[in-house]
Structures are given as C-alpha cells and as structure tokens.
C-alpha cells in the first residue's frame, strides 16, 4: 500500500548561510500509511512542531521532498496548498485557536466557509460533528463559556468538518489536566479506528504516546528512534 505521507531527506534551516544558522530538521525520512496512528515525541525544541507544520503544508522545507497522496507538494501553488490544507488536513492545536467572537457551531463551520458549501449544509454538518464530540448541547456557546476540554472537543469537530484524511494534533492535551487529556486521546483513537483517519499526534507525555501504533522520537531535528506496537 502506498504511503499517504512520504518525507524524503527533509531539512529545515533558519538563517541559512548566516553566522547564526539554525538547523531545526536534519535529513528526516518518514513514511506514514493511511489509517496509521503515529505519535511524535521528543524534547522541547527538538523540531516536532516544525515537522508537523511541514506535514500540514503550513511551512515548506529548505531541502528534501514531501509527497502527499503521491503528489510532490513543492510543485503546488500557494492557493492549491491552501485548498489541500482545507480539504485533506485537519489541525488541532495546543491552544485550541477557536475564534472568540463566534459560537461553537460557527467555529466548527469555519473550514467549510472556504470550500463554498451553502449555509444550510454547513450548519447541518457542523451540528453532526458537535454530536460526534458530544458537544451538541453547547453549539450556541462562545469559546469563553467553555472549559479547556470542551474547547478542544470543538476544535476536533472543526478539524473533522471537511472530512479530511489526516488529523494533525500538536500537543492537543498540553493545556489540559490528565483526565481530560485522556478523554481527548480517546476521541482521537475513535477518529482513527471508527473513522479511518490517519492521526499524527505530538506529545511529550509517555503514557499518551504509548497508546499510538507507532512512536517516532525526534532529537535535535533527527529521527532517533521508532517503535511499533
């Protein structure tokens, strides 16, 4: 089976060619199959977020190639990268990044605004996703009326609303207590098992990582270990 994500010799440097050149990723090769649940672990500053941003098409590598669904992403226009991001990838952030002025339902609808879906369809689909994350009773609530765990559920619903094949989560439990964090991880497992989403999750919590099929360890911008279970 062809990998959905394939990174070949990916490097990321900041201030290239200057005295303070910083190599954040160094020759990373990584291949992820559709439907995998991958945890990326490593010390703070090891390059996890940078790697995630490259996978999520928010950032471009300095060197190397990245194939998404078999297509070379370096060949895509800015506009196409935006469209792919909206349709194939769902992001979940540590700090939720919900928009405060609009309610939970509207936040979930947000990615659909950019696919041109009509308002009725948007609302119906967003409602459906809020049910999936058990937040339908809070649809009209604004982010500042929700707890951290509830916000993250809404954010997960938002990530799922365009039915992407990949869910990227950068320390999604980092701002939550451990019990709430565990429930959020359960939700990701459910998305992976019941909805066949490829999930890539960054964490530095060993217990959380242990629930993934595959654990990749980063150190100083290089993959130094890989475990499957």
């Amino acid at each position: 089976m062809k990998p959905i994500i394939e990174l070949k010799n990916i490097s990321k440097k900041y201030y290239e060619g200057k005295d303070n050149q910083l190599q954040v990723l160094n020759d990373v090769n990584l291949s992820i199959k559709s439907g995998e649940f991958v945890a990326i672990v490593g010390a703070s500053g090891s390059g996890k977020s940078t790697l995630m941003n490259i996978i999520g098409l928010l950032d471009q590598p300095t060197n190397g190639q990245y194939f998404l669904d078999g297509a070379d992403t370096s060949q895509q226009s800015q506009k196409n990268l935006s469209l792919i991001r909206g349709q194939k990838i769902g992001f979940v952030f540590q700090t939720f990044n919900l928009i405060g002025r609009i309610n939970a339902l509207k936040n979930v609808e947000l990615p659909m605004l950019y696919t041109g879906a009509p308002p009725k369809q948007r609302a119906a689909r967003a409602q459906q996703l809020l049910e999936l994350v058990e937040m339908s009773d809070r649809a009209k609530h604004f982010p500042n009326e929700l707890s951290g765990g509830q916000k993250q559920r809404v954010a997960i619903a938002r990530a799922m609303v365009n039915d992407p094949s990949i869910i990227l989560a950068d320390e999604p439990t980092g701002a939550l207590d451990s019990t709430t964090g565990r429930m959020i991880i359960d939700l990701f497992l459910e998305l992976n098992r019941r909805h066949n989403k490829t999930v890539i999750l960054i964490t530095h919590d060993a217990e959380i990582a242990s629930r993934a099929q595959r654990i990749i360890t980063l150190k100083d911008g290089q993959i130094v270990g890989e475990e499957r279970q």
Partner: protein
Amino acid sequence: MNFASNIAQTLQNLKANKTRSFLTMLGIIIGISSVIAIVTVGDSLSVSINNSMQELGASNITVSLQSKTSSRSGLERTYAAKDLLTKVMIEDLRQTYPSQIDDVSLTLAVGNGQTTKGKQYANLTLTGVNPSYGEVNDITLKSGRFLSDRDDLEQRRACVVSDKLAERIFGSASPLAERITMALEKGAETCTIVGVYEYQASLFAAAGVSDDDIVTTVYIPLETASKITNQDGFSTFTIVTAIGVNSTDFANQVGSFFGKYYSRNDDYEVTASSMESMVETVQDMINNVSMAVAVVAAISLVVGGIGVMNIMIVSITERTREIGTRKAVGATNADIRWQFIIEAVVICLIGGIFGVLLGVAGGITGAILLGFTPYVSAAAIAAATLFSMFVGVFFGYYPANKAAKMNPIDALRYE
C-alpha cells in the same frame, strides 16, 4: 468566498465593539453628511431659481444691440438712427420664422417724470409698447383694457397706468377716461387712461425707496411713443417662442438672422439670448460652487478613510491568530484579503448611510432656513453611498493585503 458570512461576522464585530465602531465611522459620517448637506442646499437653491425664472418666462428671447467696440451695456447709450433695429427687420424676422415666433414685444422708452394733482404726485416712466406687450409680460389688468391695435395705428394718446399711480392721484375714484398730464424732461405729455394694471414689486426693486417715491410705468401705444420721440427703431425687443421650440437653439438662429443686417455695421451687432440659457448659466454657476464646496468636504472623507485604515490595521494585529487559524483550515490569501476588504467596506457603507441620513436632514433644514423649497437629489445620495464604499475598498486594501500575506505559522504563534 462567502460574502454573506463575512458581512454577518463584520456586523457582529461592530456590535461587539460599539464605541470603537462609532468612532471609526465618525469621519465617514461627517464627510458624507457634509457633502450631502451642501449638495442638497445647492440643489434646492438651483431649483428655486429655476422655478422663479420659469415664471418670468424662460421661453422668451431677448434681442439687443451690442457694441462691437466696447463691452458697455446698451442701457445708457444713445444710438444713431442707422444702428437701431427697425420694424422692417422685425417684420422680416416674423415672416422668416412664422412657426417659431408666437409673439413679439416691443418697447420704446420716452422718458421719466411725474404727474401731479393738487399736492399729490406720482413718479413714472413713460414707455411705448406694442399691443402684444401686455400678454407677453403677464400684465394683470385691474380695470379697463390694455392698449389695442387701433390705439397703435391711430397713434392715440391712450395710456395704461399702475394701480399705485391711480390710487395716489385719483384715490378711490375710478381713473378710467381721466386725462393725466405728465411732466417729463423734454416737456409735458397728456393722455387718457384706458386701463389700470396691478403693480408688482420687481425682484430687483431698489431697496430703501419709500412707497411715495416708487416709480411705476405708464404704457402708451408704440406708434404714439414713436411720434413723441421722433424715433423709429429699437435697441432691444423680446420674442415669445411658440410652444415646443427650443429657445436656446432658436436664439442662435435669431442672432445669425440679424447678422445679414449688421455685417457692415462697424459699431454694433445683435445678440439674442434666451432666458433659458441665462437660467442654465446661473444654474451652472450654483452647481460649480456647490461642487467645489462638496469637493472640499470630500477631503474630510479621506481623513475618515485614513481613520478606517488605522482601525483596520489595529484590528488585524489583534486578530493575527485568527488569521493564522483561518489559513490553517483552508483560507487562501484571497479569502483573507476579501474578508478584510468587505469589513472595511461594510464599516464605510454603514457610516455612509448614517452620513446620508444626517446630511439629508441637515440639507433640508438648511434649505428651509434659507427660504427655499428643499430638493433632495437621489443621484447625490447614490453617488455618496458608492463613494463611501469606494473609500472602504481604497483604505481597506492595504490592511487587508497585509493580513492576506501573513505567514500562517508566524500568525498562529503570535502572542
């Protein structure tokens, strides 16, 4: 991109931040309302002038001699007999354009003077007119009749006097069939009163003249005046055009018609101008003035636009993470640019609408205070509304573009 949801979100933002929204719009409100108020007052003035000019007879054409060598008006000059417009020329004109000319009104000034009875006196100016004059100039008779063709043909000493004169000299008694003697600069003239007309204070009446000293016109037949003054020509006359004739165009034809009589006259030529073209000139003048003032007021709109741009920049900085999030979930640069342009346009449009309402109210009040019937121009409202949207696009573009070009990772990381 979804316009409806952008507009809905903008309205939500504006509601969430009422004071700031109001202050942002204030510049636009002031700019648009002053432009609309000025244009409304200008238009009202223009319409009022147009209406009163129409009453004076906009379809009349005034034909007059004009010196080729000096620009002095003909009022106080004396003409040589060879220079004057003759009855023959005027008859020729009538024959040439029978369907365009409805009537012609001719006048011949005889002189100024006074008539007295006992201690009573009345100032007057004696003028010879043709029988059509009364109708052409809307003279309202209170008693008797106006001068007739026979009065004219037979050079009768008949006259029509003003009600003012009649009252001063004859009191409540009927002046009809009474004879009056008028002392003029060049001697006395006597005539019999056949009619009394209603005196109307002229728009341009000299201020400060006491009622006792008012000068009113005494009309006598043209031929009679011709005989008294020993003059046979005219320095000016008025044409009433037939219904449906474009008086501005016809005035030009009349001007060139007289060209053939005056081409070899070294001193004078003939000009013909319609009241309509005079009305147009006056209106152009008013429009130019109100446009000029409106343009100055529009500068305050630019200041308003800068205010909107400033707030948009602040708002975009505050919403950096939101912009990053939107990009992460699939917004293209164009989507973000549109979002903020629409936001700026909506702010300016709302400001513009408030400005129009305020400006119309102010303009109507101003017009009423100045004594004109208020006239509100729909075109000005449409133009102001469109212009406020244009201000939104113009001043929204820079901040919107700044937002569109944000790097999503930097935006998401923004604290």
